[in-house]
């Protein structure tokens, strides 16, 4: 760059700056300019006078020498600032004045837009929080979840067995660190306090490296602490630290009793760290590979595995590595690992992947709503543009260019868009603040869903975009105005294309509303099935709570404790029946086993049956009101014999013994026969989600076979089960003062939580559909009313020529209903395609259920017909004489 160029560039920059400054000093600059020009003319005139000219001539010559004062003034003004920006400011002020002049119109437009943009923003907040923004861990994209999955058939929710974890750790080339954790329930005794049940997670030391979050206080446990035989260490969650220790910073290195053992508190995590969610205490596992070699087979999968990729290693590379190790293990251990493989998923996928289809559906629904809102506003503005034709014609006649007028109309609609958008964003912000904590599942965790600047910017961008989108039609229509006719006739008149545009908008609006209605109806029906289909048990008046003993507790201790509590609770006034189970329906809990059966051929290494295991005790069937289909339930005696008998569910019979009597037949585990003594109904919710169909299941006596250490008690009560909680706590304390009860909830609450997500989706889409329907009706009403108002005179002529009132009404109904019908057809077509996206979300209803479509169409047609009918009847009641005289 030469010196000259640089000087020129500096000059340009100074010019731009000074023009920008001028924007804010318009009035002063104008005054100065006027002063300057006046002083110029005065000085010039005075000089002329001095040369002896008469006063008049002196002034005249000064003016002539100067040239056009107005032109110079305008030129200087134009170059002093930015005319574009100044026009824009004028247009914005004009738009605001227009809004003040017709506040009703402005309010309707702004409210409509606020609804559309607010809905979109709220949903986008959800999407952004889950699927877009980085997760709160350093280099979060390097964290992967590794699942253990069956090559085919049902897996155990991705859980892995310990030996496979150790193999993976020894053989992989992709991971910097490999963490495992599993949920556990613990009982903490600290000082003289009563025992507290805590949600405990046991992890290895690498867990802290994988997630990479620093503790708030103290330290996390490291590889040294993780050696067997080292003093046991735990880390507290922020909430547990507050709840149990009152936020005392002196807890670091304090010793507490956890499940009867002494452990040391190493650190406290910050409030934001919540992995896995709900954890109150992390407990160093201290597992040694040598201790686990026996536990390779079915029923030993219990850990979740996460890993941090080495720098530079991609997920695809890691997948190849995992496949290689999986293949090795399949060859080395065909009996136990033969049908298993490792799969990897990004942390985001693992956490929110299941939610993605639902979020996509919500996003589409909100976009549809926004489109409908825009169309409504476009329609309103079109009508208003017609009403303002005279104003436009006048301004055009006074010299405003067509481009200038288009600009002004677009400015008006963008101003409306931005105000509506700002209100929508504010509404969405309030909504998100208000409901974020009550969102179902992971979404409800603190900080999981919150509005952030990127979302707000996108929303405002959408607001400006919609402002242009819905403003473009009326702005363009104004360009077509014929100056002389508009001025002369003093009435509003549009070409046929204006009607065409409006009709098309009605079609689109009806079509979009139908899509939303179909979606909402499908989701509502699905939810209804989800809630109302037989569960296999009666959830009313059922109180549940959990207890947990260390896994290596002796069978006699287990039996005595749980048996003792069972007896105490049975005598509780108000308790009708009490039962126990190791994992309640709706809990995402898996334990699967392989069986042979005495009625099926036995092949080596090819188990005949793969089924989910559950253990029950007490009067489980009675307390849950599970129908006994055949045979008998399990008694206390059954847990005392060596080869304990079992119950199976109907699904196992249907799959493996159709049409035959299962009673008296045996399931074989390692050759040991277990007699099937009863068949019970399928319990929904035992396969994780209550939407999953229950698979084959086997029910064992929980107190047999060494005793199951974790139990959920179910207590059926006469009245409100909540009233029993206190009494139950007292009874448990009476049996064993070192035990605490946890997870107290009614069965209704658990079910409620289980359907919270589908219910939320349904509620959101249904409310969108409702708003869409309302907007569509307002839009159609507006259009028909506009047609009628436009053609009052024509109606008069027609009536004078003998048209009947019914004929007139029919004319307008046709006008509205034909585009509506076109919209319905198109909407139905698009719905058929779009609802395929919903398929994975639906339970008990098909995405193309014709009944759903019929219901949605009727639900749409009725209000549309009413919205059409009213203005049409107004048209029919026009008095022909007055209509003709009005002109």
């Amino acid at each position, binding site marked *: 760059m030469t010196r000259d160029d640089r000087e020129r560039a500096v000059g340009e920059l100074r010019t731009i700056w000074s023009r920008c400054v001028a924007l804010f000093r318009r009035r002063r600059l104008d005054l100065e300019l006027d002063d300057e*020009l006046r002083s*110029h003319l005065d000085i010039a005139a005075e000089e002329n006078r001095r040369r002896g000219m008469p006063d008049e001539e002196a002034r005249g010559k000064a003016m002539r020498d100067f040239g056009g004062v107005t032109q110079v003034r305008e030129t200087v003004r134009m*170059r002093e600032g930015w005319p574009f920006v100044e026009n824009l400011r004028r247009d914005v002020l004009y738009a605001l004045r227009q809004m003040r002049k017709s506040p009703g119109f402005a309010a309707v437009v702004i409210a409509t837009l606020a609804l559309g943009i607010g809905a979109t923003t709220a949903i986008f907040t959800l999407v952004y929080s889950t699927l877009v923004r980085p997760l709160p861990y350093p280099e979060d994209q390097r964290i992967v979840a590794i699942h253990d999955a069956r090559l085919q058939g049902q897996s155990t929710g991705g859980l892995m067995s310990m030996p496979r974890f150790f193999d993976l750790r020894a053989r992989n080339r992709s991971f910097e660190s490999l963490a495992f954790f599993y949920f556990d329930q613990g009982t903490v005794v600290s000082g003289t306090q009563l025992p507290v049940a805590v949600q405990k997670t046991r992890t290895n030391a690498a867990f802290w490296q994988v997630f990479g979050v620093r503790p708030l206080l103290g330290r996390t446990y490291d590889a040294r602490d993780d050696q067997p035989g080292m003093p046991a260490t735990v880390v507290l969650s922020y909430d547990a630290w507050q709840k149990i220790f009152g936020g005392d910073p002196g807890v670091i290195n304090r010793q507490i009793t956890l499940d009867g053992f002494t452990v040391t508190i190493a650190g406290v995590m910050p409030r934001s760290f919540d992995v896995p969610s709900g954890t109150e205490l992390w407990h160093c596992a201290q597992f040694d590979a040598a201790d686990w070699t026996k536990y390779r087979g079915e029923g030993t999968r219990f850990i979740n595995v996460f890993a941090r990729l080495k720098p530079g290693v991609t997920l695809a590379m890691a997948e190849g590595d995992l496949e290689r190790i999986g293949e090795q293990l399949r060859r080395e251990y065909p009996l136990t690992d033969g049908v298993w493989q490792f799969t990897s998923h990004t942390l985001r996928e693992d956490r929110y992947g299941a939610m993605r289809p639902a979020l996509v559906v919500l996003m589409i629904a909100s976009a549809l709503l926004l489109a409908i809102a825009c169309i409504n506003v476009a329609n309103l503005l079109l009508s208003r543009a017609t009403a303002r034709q005279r104003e436009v014609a006048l301004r055009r006649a006074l010299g405003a260019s067509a481009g200038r007028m288009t*600009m002004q109309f677009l400015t008006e609609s963008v101003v409306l868009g931005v105000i509506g958008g700002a209100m929508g964003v504010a509404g969405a912000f309030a909504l998100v603040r208000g409901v974020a904590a009550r969102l179902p599942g992971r979404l409800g965790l603190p900080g999981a869903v919150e509005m952030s600047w990127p979302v707000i910017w996108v929303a405002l961008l959408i607001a400006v975009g919609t402002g242009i989108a819905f403003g473009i039609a009326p702005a363009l229509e104004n360009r077509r105005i014929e100056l002389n006719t508009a001025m002369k006739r003093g009435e509003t008149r549009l070409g046929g294309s204006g009607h065409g545009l409006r009709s098309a908008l009605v079609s689109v609006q009806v079509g979009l509303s139908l899509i939303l209605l179909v979606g909402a109806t499908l989701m509502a029906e699905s939810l209804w099935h989800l809630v109302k289909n037989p569960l296999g048990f009666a959830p009313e008046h059922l109180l549940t709570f959990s207890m947990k003993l260390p896994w290596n507790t002796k069978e006699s201790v287990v039996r005595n404790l749980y048996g003792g509590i069972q007896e105490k609770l049975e005598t509780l006034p108000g308790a009708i029946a009490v039962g126990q189970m190791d994992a309640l329906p709706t809990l995402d809990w898996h334990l699967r086993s392989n069986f042979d059966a005495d009625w099926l051929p036995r092949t080596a290494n090819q188990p005949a049956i793969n089924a989910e295991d559950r253990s029950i005790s007490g009067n489980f069937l009675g307390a849950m009101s599970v129908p006994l289909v055949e045979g008998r339930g399990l008694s206390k005696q059954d847990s005392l014999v060596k080869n304990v008998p079992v119950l199976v569910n109907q699904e196992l019979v249907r799959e493996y013994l159709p049409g035959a009597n299962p009673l008296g037949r045996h399931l074989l585990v390692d050759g040991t026969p277990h007699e099937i003594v009863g068949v019970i109904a399928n319990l929904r919710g035992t396969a994780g989600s209550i939407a999953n169909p229950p698979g084959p299941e086997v029910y064992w006596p929980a107190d047999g076979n060494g005793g199951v250490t974790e139990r959920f008690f179910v207590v059926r009560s006469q009245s409100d089960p909540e009233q029993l909680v206190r009494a139950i706590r007292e009874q448990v304390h009476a049996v064993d003062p070192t035990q605490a009860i946890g997870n107290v909830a009614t069965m209704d609450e658990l079910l409620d939580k289980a359907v919270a997500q589908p219910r939320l989706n349904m509620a959101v889409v249904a409310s969108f559909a409702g708003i869409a329907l309302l907007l569509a009706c307002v839009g159609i009403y507006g259009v028909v009313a506009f047609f009628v108002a436009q053609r009052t005179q024509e109606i008069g002529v027609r009536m004078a020529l003998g048209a009947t009132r019914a004929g007139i009404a029919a004319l307008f109904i046709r006008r509205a209903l034909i585009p509506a019908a076109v919209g319905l057809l198109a909407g139905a077509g698009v719905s058929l395609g779009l609802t395929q996206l919903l398929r994975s979300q639906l339970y008990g209803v098909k995405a193309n259920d014709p009944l759903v479509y019929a219901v949605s169409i009727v639900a749409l047609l009725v209000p549309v017909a009413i919205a059409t009918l009213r203005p049409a009847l107004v048209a029919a009641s026009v008095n022909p004489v007055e209509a003709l005289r009005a002109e």
Partner: protein
Amino acid sequence: MGEDKSDVLRPTAGAAGSPMLQGTLDLMVLKTLESMGPQHGYGIARRIEQISEQALRLNQGTIYPALLRLRQRGWIKAEWGTSENGRRARYYSLTKTGKAQIERETESWERVAATMARFLTAG
């Protein structure tokens, strides 16, 4: 939007509205201020008329867009003052960068003029 009515600036004679004229006028203004010191718009316009001996007859108003342009570039500055016969007037004077600019503008103008002269004689 900004319909720039630059034809207003067209002088009554000479190279009509060409960018060269703009540069010429700028240089004339700068030179005037250099030789005469602070001047108001009318004074500058008169001086240009006198020097050019009516060869370039411009509307005096044309001077104002040029003054604005120079002011925006930071080459001249304006201050309100009182004229010799007691009238309020806006006085323009050169800034430091403006003084440096005269040299550059002169140089470039001479280059153009020389090139032009060669062309005309070569014909």
